[in-house]
């Protein structure tokens, strides 16, 4: 009941947020120096050529007109055409998004179990050698710039050892072995980036719960420690943990421009950088809408999970 209501409420909130994002992105990107016409012509632009192209792309119209045209187009199911390539935005994103989702999914499949395990183990053995070792390890992983990890891994595994390819090129015939080889390096790099935060938040949240008197009480009552952790500590710690996981996953969709660049992977993150640098407004807006939606779906899942896990929240 409660969850149903929450989802309904969230749907409304999501629409509102989407609208706010589109407005913010539209205003910000209209403040960028240059527009699609001047960027397309680049160094070879002349005032007449830019003016002609502007007219052709409809950039001569006032900002608000363009915004509402885009908004009405979107609401009637037409997110428009890319100004730069002339292709429908839906088609471009349609070919890129599945690739991003696949990379993010693979990374989540590896990183979430690893992070949760590290976090829970660290919390249970708080301040022990294991805890400190895991802590320094996860910190070191995140303390190295992403592009350095990516490039270093290519240097070692692709250039020197020649075990893995340097570029993530999706094989035509997709058997599990070739997919694993192609994705090994980007997934590893991304795990370096996201494991630390999830592990640390898990540790903090579980540790906080372990300090609660009810844990002591439960142990005194004779419950075994694993049972206490599974039945009482984890449900209570779910809120912050799933939130950290949701944030990390949303990063995996939109924030992986460096990995996409280094491994030449055609995902949506590099697409949006393209859209910004070429001032391709319809493409930029559509991309941000996609990210925004993905993010809110993840957060919704996180919140629902938190409520389901913690009966107290459901009651209030």
């Amino acid at each position, binding site marked *: 009941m409660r969850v149903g209501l929450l989802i309904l409420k969230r749907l409304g*909130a999501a629409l*509102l*947020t989407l609208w*706010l*994002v589109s407005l*913010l*992105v539209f205003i*910000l*990107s209209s403040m*960028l120096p240059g527009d699609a016409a001047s960027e397309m012509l680049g160094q070879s632009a002349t005032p007449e050529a830019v003016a002609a192209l502007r007219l052709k792309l409809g950039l001569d119209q006032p900002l608000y007109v363009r915004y509402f045209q885009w908004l009405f187009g979107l609401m009637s199911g037409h997110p428009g055409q890319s100004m730069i390539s002339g292709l429908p935005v839906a088609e471009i994103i349609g070919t890129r998004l599945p690739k991003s989702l696949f990379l993010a999914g693979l990374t989540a499949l590896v990183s979430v179990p690893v992070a949760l395990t590290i976090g829970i183990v660290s919390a249970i053995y708080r301040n022990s050698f294991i805890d400190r070792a895991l*802590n*320094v390890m996860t*910190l*070191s992983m*995140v*303390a*190295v*710039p*992403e*592009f*350095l990890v990516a*490039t*270093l891994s290519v*240097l070692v595994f692709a*250039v020197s050892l020649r075990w893995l390819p340097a570029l993530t090129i999706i094989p035509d015939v997709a058997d599990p072995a070739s997919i694993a080889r192609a994705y090994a390096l980007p997934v590893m790099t991304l795990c370096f980036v996201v494991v*630390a*935060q999830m592990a*640390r*938040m898990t540790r*903090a*949240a579980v*540790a*906080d719960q372990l*300090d609660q*008197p009810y844990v002591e009480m439960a142990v005194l009552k004779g419950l075994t420690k694993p049972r206490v952790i599974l039945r009482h500590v984890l449900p*209570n710690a779910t*809120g*912050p943990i799933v*939130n950290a996981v949701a*944030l990390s996953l949303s*990063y995996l*969709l*939109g*924030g992986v*421009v*460096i990995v996409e*660049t280094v491994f030449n992977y055609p995902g949506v*993150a590099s697409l*949006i*950088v393209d859209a*910004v640098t070429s001032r391709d407004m319809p493409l930029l807006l559509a991309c*941000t809408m996609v*990210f*925004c939606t993905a*993010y809110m779906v993840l*957060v919704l899942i996180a919140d629902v999970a*938190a409520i389901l896990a913690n009966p*107290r*929240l459901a009651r*209030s």
Partner: protein
Amino acid sequence: MRKSYSLDAEALPQDGLAVAERAWKSLSISGRVGLVLVIFWLFIAVFGAFLSPYSPSAFVADDVFLPMSAAHWLGSDYLGRDTLSRVLSGTRYTVGLAFFGALLASATGTFLALYAAVSQGVLDEVISRLMDTLISIPSKIFALVLVAVFGASLPLLLLTAAIIYLPGSYRIARALAVNLNSMDYVEVARVRGERKLYIVFHEILPNMLNPMMADFGLRFVFVVLLLSGMSFLGLGVQPPAADLGSLVRENMSGLQDIAPAILAPAIAIATLTIGVNLLIDALPQSGNGKGGH
């Protein structure tokens, strides 16, 4: 019954050295390592520029990517500048931007989260929607746009970092606050008739500090990494100055030679971020054992 901070108000009139000694003794080994690292990098951040053997922008070496030598302790960079001098004077940008950026983000995020969690209703909705709006735009893209629109001055980079990491802090803080808000002892306090402000500062905030400090540590790391990520996209501190991330980035072609020009700033980033987090982890944990109302 709450453990007090070693640096509590009551300790102030005492001899400073004694306080420091007590603080040092209260730290675990890893905490001490963290403290030493943090103090070291703070020192470099403040005085590094005065310790540089050369001007960080001068072309002083005969060749690029020189190894360590007596004349150039950390060799030369990709243009033949002195790496040691560049790291010494670049640290302040990284430390300053990351510290103040993360602090601004964490403090604002926590404050807004508490406000939202306690007031609930419309205000909670409004703040949450605004935060969602900010967070659902990927951080590097947001940085790309902000820098392109407003330029890459230091205050702007700071503000960019803060805006980008504010919603993350907010979300985590809000999740914690909502969770705590539904705790029995908070409800007890509410039934007791305590004012909102009292509940926030006496019941909820102390119990959030521990995870929020951990979060601040990570935000610090994130800003450092955001800066280096931005350098990948060609943004960041204006040359000839360079933050540590940019130093790594600009010397990438020395990677295979394992040139000190790329190792030194990379190690600097690593020890700095690890130090900050070790120290925060080891700080006396406030609020623990509380809730025995």
